[in-house]
């Protein structure tokens, strides 16, 4: 007879819950050729959804390829810090046009489920949000990626909106804005219900910028797919190029030199500065701080010019490709490692000048400008509970006290100390403050990378670009990068010498739904400034 272990005070050790973990459930599925992907039966998939209720596993992406639905998880929580990137992919072979959705339990899944429904005509059962995301009836076919798409009946005259809020209907007004407003928000339509001097309802009509990235990045050559990965949206072009390239490298089992990782990380930090400056400039402009906006726009333009001069890429498009980095130093046709390093050192020096001069002035000016500081306090507040439920990252998540940062566990950032700024207020003012602090951190990291580029070690001077040979047999790879607005994730399937399929996870889809919620209650005059503080890119939402 076995005696249960006794703790101090005579209490019995509590028995572990019999419910299996997500890891165990997924790993119990049928193994595939890819070590981290498992095929689940429908029953196991149902169990998996239920199991997510009290498991820390985070859903990074949910995609479809017509034959199966694939759910991509990270074990243990949002990758970053102590939790590294430990991916697991569960695949469910589709037997009909439905599958059990995740969004009722994991709200992050909603944009993915909406996209799958619009592109493939496959619906998520028990979905939290059943609105269309990109298909508004203007396409030539419905469910365009399905095996047999149905010809569309033609565009309806008016988009469908939900019934107005009773208070707005009784004594308020409905304002519409976009998709061509002459402003900076891109092709998107907002419908605001305003009553008693406050925005009560916000509806966002997306889909105007949908280009079909998923279809375009399927069945194409590696070079074409790499070029397209940089054109998902310009605010995170480098992060997407890096994630795609790293996924391809992981699929073919290629390891790039540490120096290439550092160059990619340095460029990613420049992009973070760019994107934050653009977002801050737009916020300042919308808030009426014209002088501040002009300074921010000018700073961004100067950085772009410096990049153009040093590495031949003004907006960092086409900088990274599978197998290395593809920089074109001005005046040098032949890509030589010494020239690249020299160009990068110059770039780091120029950015350091910005960090010690202009940036500090702009930051001081921001703090002294009331319309962007005190006026934005308490506006567009994102509750911590919402941020936790959606597992937000980037500036929006960090302003709500969520400090997960994938850079802390990325090999490319080894040797660089990473301090992730965090605030707890969750309002527009906090988001802007976090962006400034993020820029300061990125500047510090760029200075640290600069010291690495001066390494005279011959071993470090490996070629900066080695073309990748895509194998004929099927192989799959994944990668995640901390982009300017949060975690960016790519899963790539290679087959027959080309890119068979690319799955893209963008934080913009979730951020757009947060923005919609947080803008309710703000003053109409501050609507644009608060909206800009989220920095949501329409191109990234629509894909």
């Amino acid at each position: 007879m076995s005696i249960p272990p006794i703790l101090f005070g005579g209490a019995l050790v509590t028995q572990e819950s019999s419910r299996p973990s997500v890891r165990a459930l997924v790993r119990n599925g049928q193994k595939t050729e890819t070590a981290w992907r498992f095929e689940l039966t429908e029953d196991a998939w149902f169990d998996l959804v239920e199991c997510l209720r009290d498991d820390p596993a985070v859903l990074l992406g949910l995609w479809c390829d017509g034959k199966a639905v694939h759910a991509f998880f990270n074990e243990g929580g949002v990758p970053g810090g102590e939790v590294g990137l430990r991916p697991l992919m569960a695949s469910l072979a589709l037997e009909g046009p439905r599958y059990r959705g995740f969004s009722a339990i994991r709200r992050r899944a909603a944009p993915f489920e909406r996209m799958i429904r619009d592109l493939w005509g496959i619906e998520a059962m028990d979905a939290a949000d059943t609105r269309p995301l990109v298909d508004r009836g203007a396409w030539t076919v419905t469910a365009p990626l399905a095996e047999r798409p149905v010809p569309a009946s033609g565009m309806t005259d008016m988009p469908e909106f939900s019934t107005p809020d009773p208070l707005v209907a009784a004594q308020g007004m409905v304002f519409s804005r976009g998709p061509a407003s002459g402003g900076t928000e891109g092709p998107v339509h907002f419908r605001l219900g305003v009553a008693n001097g406050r925005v009560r309802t916000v509806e966002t009509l997306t889909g105007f910028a949908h280009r079909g990235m998923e279809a375009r990045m399927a069945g194409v050559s590696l070079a074409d797919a790499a070029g397209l990965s940089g054109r998902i949206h310009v605010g995170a072009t480098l992060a997407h190029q890096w994630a795609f390239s790293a996924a391809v490298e992981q699929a073919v089992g290629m390891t790039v030199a540490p120096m290439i990782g550092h160059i990619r990380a340095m460029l990613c930090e420049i992009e973070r500065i760019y994107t934050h400056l653009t977002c801050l400039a737009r916020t300042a402009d919308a808030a009426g701080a014209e002088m501040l906006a002009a300074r921010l726009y000018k700073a961004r333009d100067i950085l772009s010019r410096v990049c153009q001069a040093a590495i031949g890429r003004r907006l960092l498009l086409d900088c990274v490709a599978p197998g290395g980095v593809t920089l074109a130093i001005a005046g040098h046709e032949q890509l030589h490692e010494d020239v690249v390093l020299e160009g990068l050192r110059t770039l780091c020096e120029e950015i350091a000048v910005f960090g010690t001069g202009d940036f500090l002035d702009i930051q001081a000016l921001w703090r002294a400008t009331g319309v962007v500081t005190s006026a934005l306090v308490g506006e567009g507040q994102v509750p911590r509970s919402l941020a936790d439920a959606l597992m937000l990252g980037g500036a929006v998540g960090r302003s709500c006290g969520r400090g997960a940062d994938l850079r802390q566990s990325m090999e490319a950032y080894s040797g660089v100390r990473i301090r992730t700024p965090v605030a707890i207020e969750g309002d527009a003012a906090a988001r802007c403050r976090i962006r400034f602090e993020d820029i300061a951190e990125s500047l510090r990291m760029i200075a640290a990378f600069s010291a690495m580029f001066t390494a005279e070690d011959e071993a470090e001077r490996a070629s900066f670009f080695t073309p990748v040979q895509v194998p004929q047999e099927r192989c799959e790879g994944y990668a995640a990068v901390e982009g300017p607005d949060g975690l960016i994730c790519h899963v790539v399937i290679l087959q027959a010498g080309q890119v068979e399929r690319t799955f893209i996870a963008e934080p913009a889809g979730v951020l757009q739904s947060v923005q919609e919620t947080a803008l309710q209650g703000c003053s109409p005059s501050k609507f644009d400034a608060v909206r800009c503080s989220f920095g949501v890119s329409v191109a990234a939402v629509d894909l």
Partner: protein
Amino acid sequence: MSTVLIRALFTSLLAPAGPALPPVVSRSPLVFFHVDSGGCEACSLEVEALRKGDYGLAEAGIVFTDAPRVADMLLVTGTCTRMMAPVVKAAWEAMPQPKGLLAVGACAIDGGPFAENYAVLGGLEKRASVDCAIPGCPPTPDAILQGIVSLLSPTPAPIMEA
């Protein structure tokens, strides 16, 4: 003679009613309405850099407006998606005569990396008479400015080098 001038002349001669409008080139300031019709936002970011940056647009008599009803030129960036096509058309029709069309970036010209598919129509080149096309993926603000200036200059230079 530039296409804009020819169009302005024809419009003033063939307009059904109303007073003859002055040709577009004599207007000062020249008013632009910008529409992003889809794409990766790089071109619209460069147009934004040109508008808000230190490029001296106002001094050159170039302004941007939020309303197509008062615009002389329609500046389009990005490939034309099927959802944006009626929007671009509506903006064009809302503009008073004479008017011109400026396509900025490879996407707006011929679709660039985003050619025609179920959601995208492609560039404006084959669908409309473009007065000035500025190639590049994306073109720099300097190249865009050069393209706009070429519209104002007496020597026609409809296609600029990136």
